């Protein structure tokens, strides 16, 4: 399998604070990677570097054969192929659900409106809320908004999906409806990189689980190995904290 994302020796600083230290990671096409770790460990920063929401200072990122550098053409090309789902949904509140979904395909991919709307309805059906298409984001529950956010990202037909703690801002009873959508997306073969604390999800779909702490990757293993036989002390401590509750 060719590499979808290839990160080599990445360093990232906020002023004097080093958020990422010498991080290297390869994600092959179709692979599902779950990144976990304590708060402030750099896991969100890492996936935000992949589509240039954060700028890295050293090392290299290669996405689907395009090198991520200061060239805006390269950045645009990568963003077109990489979808992202945020912790706080970030739907556009002044547009209906349907407009949220057709905006980027129409502007960026120049898809005609009729076709874009058809595609939007297809993906809204897939996340089980086609009947909300004409509503505004403020009229939906958190779980529904997050499913719309997933549909909106899918409308760009991305090859890679990044999930940045997609269930952390949700009420407990809404978490499973979002995870279900992510599981079915995984089953269809999407390349996924998920920052999440949902260890059940990691066990169910991940090809490999990565544990990060203080800006470094501490451990990378398949889920059975990762959960049943963690190698590193910090991983063990973290898992005991996350799985205990």
């Amino acid at each position: 399998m060719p590499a979808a994302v290839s990160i080599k020796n990445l360093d990232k600083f906020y002023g004097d604070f080093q958020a990422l230290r010498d991080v290297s990671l390869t994600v092959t096409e179709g692979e599902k990677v779950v990144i976990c770790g304590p708060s402030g460990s750099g896991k969100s920063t890492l996936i935000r570097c992949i589509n240039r929401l954060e700028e890295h200072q050293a090392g290299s990122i290669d996405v689907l054969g395009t090198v991520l550098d200061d060239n805006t053409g390269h950045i645009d090309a990568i963003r077109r192929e990489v979808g992202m789902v945020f912790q706080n949904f970030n739907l556009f509140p002044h547009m209906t659900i349907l407009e949220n979904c057709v905006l980027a395909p129409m502007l960026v991919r120049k898809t005609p409106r009729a076709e874009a709307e058809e595609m939007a309805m297809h993906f809204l059906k897939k996340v089980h809320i086609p009947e909300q298409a004409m509503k505004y984001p403020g009229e939906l529950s958190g779980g529904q908004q997050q499913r719309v956010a997933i549909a909106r990202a899918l409308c760009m037909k991305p090859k890679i999906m990044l999930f940045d703690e997609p269930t952390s801002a949700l009420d407990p009873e809404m978490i499973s409806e979002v995870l279900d959508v992510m599981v079915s997306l995984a089953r269809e073969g999407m390349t996924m990189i998920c920052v999440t604390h949902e260890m059940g999800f990691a066990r169910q779909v991940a090809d490999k689980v990565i544990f990060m702490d203080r800006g470094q990757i501490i451990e990378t293993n398949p889920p059975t190995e990762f959960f049943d036989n963690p190698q590193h002390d910090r991983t063990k401590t973290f898992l005991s904290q996350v799985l205990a509750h």
Partner: protein
Amino acid sequence: MTDIALAPPSLDLRHMVRRKLFPTPLSGLVSLIGIALISWLAWALIRWAILDAVFFGTPDECKQAAGACWAVITTRWRLMFFGLYPYDEHWRSAFGCLTLIAVIVLSCIPWFWTALRISVLWVVSFTIFVVLMRGGLFGLSVITEDKWGGLALSIFIFAGTSLLGMPLAIMLALLRRSPLPLVAKLSGLFIDTVRSLPLITILFTVAILLPIIVPGLAGTKITRVICGMAVFFAAYQAEIIRSGIQSLPVGQEEAAKALGLNYWQRTRKIILPQAFRRALPPTVSQFAISFKEVALVIVIGIFDFLASGNAAYGSGDWAFAYVEVYAFMAFVYFIFVFSLSRYGAYLERRMRVGK
């Protein structure tokens, strides 16, 4: 066990009056005095403004009557509305003025809130106004800008200020947020400089000093005044827009970036529409302020609504009727600015539901 009330208790009018106005003897006395005072004032005003007023007639008839002399308005309204514009051509000024009012009203309708629609609307209507007013086309006689005046001119200056000022304000607000420090600093310096100058000095500069400093300067005095006022408007409005932009959650721009939208697409579709919604109350008051500030152009000898009003009573015969003239002008200003603030309130209600 007591019954559960299914509806709030309904109060009859007598009960309400007693509870609100006469809860105690002292409050009742104060209420009575207040009601008497208001009634007396209202009656005096109605007698002066309507019952004893003269609506049509000569100055002499007015002087004999005890009430207001609205005859000065019915006789001189054309001067107040159209200034020194040639009498036979007043219809052109009236149509031009109505076009601008119509376009101001149309701009308030959300359907027009796309960059394309709003610019087409304004460019077309402005062209119609200028062609009607200046003439020289379609067999209309040429009437130069020094003859324009009255309410029509005031609305033209206001519309011109908004038309030039708003795009300039957006540009300044975006430049001030530029990631390039030099550009951001320069824009900030420009905004702060203009904001630290009184409007009246800007008006004197563009109307009187500029032609002396730069001989052979293109453009009439009115065009220069509109440009000066637009820059002044833009400096304030830019900060209002910037406050709207900065109040947006950073996630909005990040989501737009992640979807692949470029800078202009993000700005046009995501950032500005939301920034304008958030900055709506101060934007409405900025428009109200600029509408009233147009009256300042009187000091540089432009014959606006206020100047025409002064002329309407200032010509001997009607000199005694200045109260009525000013009351009428205040009423016209009130209609404009009050509708503006009502419109602002409507927009806020509308946006509360997320639209």
